[in-house]
């Protein structure tokens, strides 16, 4: 049942560029799709390990900058009279590097942040994102600071034997984003359904109990952070090569908020949640634009968010699945977490 609905959904999404001719809507779908990838990665931390990270845009932005700088080249002075010079590389290399560097950052942030929990964790993640923004803003020699990195090249796929295929049109970019989103989705799904996934959920349900059955909390959280950051970095890279200009404003808190809204309204802890939440809140501004004054649009946006949280507190997807399940006479779709099972499979 689930597989069929997923295939139908993917097919529907894939068909859009073929009949949806309005470039404005396609553009909105592409940027929304990029943020949905970011939201899915956030969901891994937020929904499956229960860690409320509000600095997620840092990984997205780091991915964007790494990818842009790799494909534009740079020349910076380092302490000690060294100059680090880099010649431009193909954008696809930028994409790969973005994933790697963002993942690494996820590792280090994970190490530091997971010494604390709850409210403290929230704040340290916000701080991390702000510090990264300020570095991007002030290290002008490397990042161009507020002068922005411009003329970032579009991604070109190297096709052995055929040369390069540059993804210039909207349709190309749409499919690129869709493919990356699918890969991210499948990766996260595999992870969640593996026994690593059970470890994550075990520790989310009851951390003390999880420790007592032998789950290595720090290792689990750190791995989750690395993968989450890496996927966010990938999204950032796509963003840089699509919008083709990056400035420190990409780290603005509002972008993290956008992803958080997508995850929580869609249903954290559900795989499809960020996608549904993302489509709704990514496209809501587009829908509101022609009907309301600019300030009113924002008020409505906040209002819709509050309304969804009141009416469907677990998020759209879990609430609807529950209702649908009841209608069809099925019990809750979510299997209980069996910690003893996990312990038996985890090495001591």
């Amino acid at each position, binding site marked *: 049942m689930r597989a069929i609905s997923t295939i139908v959904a993917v097919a529907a999404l894939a068909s859009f560029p073929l009949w949806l001719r309005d470039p404005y809507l396609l553009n909105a779908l592409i940027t929304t799709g990029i943020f949905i990838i970011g939201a899915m990665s956030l969901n891994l931390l937020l929904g499956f390990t229960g860690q409320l990270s509000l600095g997620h845009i840092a990984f997205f932005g780091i991915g964007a900058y790494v990818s842009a700088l790799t494909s534009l080249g740079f020349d910076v002075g380092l302490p000690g009279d060294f100059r680090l010079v880099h010649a431009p590389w193909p954008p696809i290399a930028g994409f790969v590097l973005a994933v790697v560097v963002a993942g690494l950052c996820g590792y280090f942030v994970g190490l530091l942040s997971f010494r604390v929990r709850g409210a403290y964790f929230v704040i*340290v993640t916000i701080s991390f994102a702000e510090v990264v923004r300020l570095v991007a803003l*002030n290290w002008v020699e490397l990042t161009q600071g507020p002068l922005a990195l411009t003329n970032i090249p579009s991604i070109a796929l190297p096709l052995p034997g055929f040369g390069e295929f540059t993804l210039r049109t909207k349709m190309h970019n749409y499919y690129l984003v869709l493919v990356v989103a699918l890969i991210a989705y499948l990766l996260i799904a595999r992870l969640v359904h593996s026994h690593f996934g059970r470890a994550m959920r075990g520790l989310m349900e009851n951390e003390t109990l999880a420790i007592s059955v032998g789950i290595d909390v720090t290792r689990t959280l750190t791995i989750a952070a690395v993968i989450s950051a890496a996927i966010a970095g990938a999204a950032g890279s796509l963003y840089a090569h699509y919008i083709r200009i990056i400035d420190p404003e990409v780290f603005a808190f509002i972008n993290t908020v956008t992803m958080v809204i997508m995850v929580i309204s869609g249903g954290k802890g559900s795989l499809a949640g960020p996608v549904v939440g993302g489509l709704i809140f990514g496209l809501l501004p587009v829908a509101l634009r022609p009907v309301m004054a600019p*300030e009113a649009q924002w008020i409505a946006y906040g209002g819709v968010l509050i309304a969804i*949280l009141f009416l469907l507190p677990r998020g759209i997807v879990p609430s609807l699945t529950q209702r649908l399940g009841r209608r069809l006479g099925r019990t809750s779709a979510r299997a209980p977490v069996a910690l003893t099972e996990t312990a038996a499979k985890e090495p001591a």
Partner: protein
Amino acid sequence: MSEFLQHLVNMLVLGGTYALLGIGLTLIFGIMNVVNFTHGVLYTFGAYVMFMVVQQLGLNFFLALPVAVLAGWLLGAAIELTLLRPLRGSDIDTTMLVMIGAWIAMQSGTLWIWGGVAKAVATPFPEAPLVLGPVSVSWLRLFVLIAAALLILVTYLLINRTSLGRAMRATFQDHDTASLMGVNVDMIYTSTFAIGSSLAAAAGALLGPVYVIFPQMGDLAAVKAFAIVILGGLGNITGAVIGGFILALAEELGAGYVSSGYRDAMGFLIIIAVLIFRPTGLFARAERVG
């Protein structure tokens, strides 16, 4: 040396208002475990109330201050009753997101009502600063420091010498036991949120005339409030006061001697440093969670 003294004086004046912001948030965060994203909006609201009352209604500046504090109290209570109480028992992220929604809506509402052009509030103080040797400080800022100190004292007394305060502290220590002992937890929550909000509004009302008033002014203030809460430890008022001064000092010295571009980063750097070396804050008595 004189430059250093000037930085110190700047720090004292700023620290008082930061402390007010921090106390408000640490109470809400500590007692209710709510990541209160509307704190910055309350700060902005307090400033706009001052503008309305002094500039548009023509009321006396000193009378306008209690009006702003009261308005903040009322708005805070309204938010708690309409948005937080119905969601009592939900996770921290749901309430956080509701606070974010309220923040977005209220900030845009501010833009709608008053427009984006910055406003100023006339004050009864002389423009020329008080000069003490190499150091200058404006009379307005001195007043702000004194007013902030008074409010901090009043809050401290409220929390530590009244039965309401005792009930709040009990709820902070153990919400279930307090409820069993007859504390009306619902009322405590509303009061806490209202008090915290009124303190934020007070900070805005005091600082609005010092700076200028515009819809996004609360965003930076909110972030600094979070930094102070971390520094001082969740729920710890004394910690928040000291944290406020430490943040102000770090900002002044950081901007003065390290790099002015990173001034507002000081708060964040402090947070990260504290959380690496002393996760519970410099003064917290409560245990680390997890």
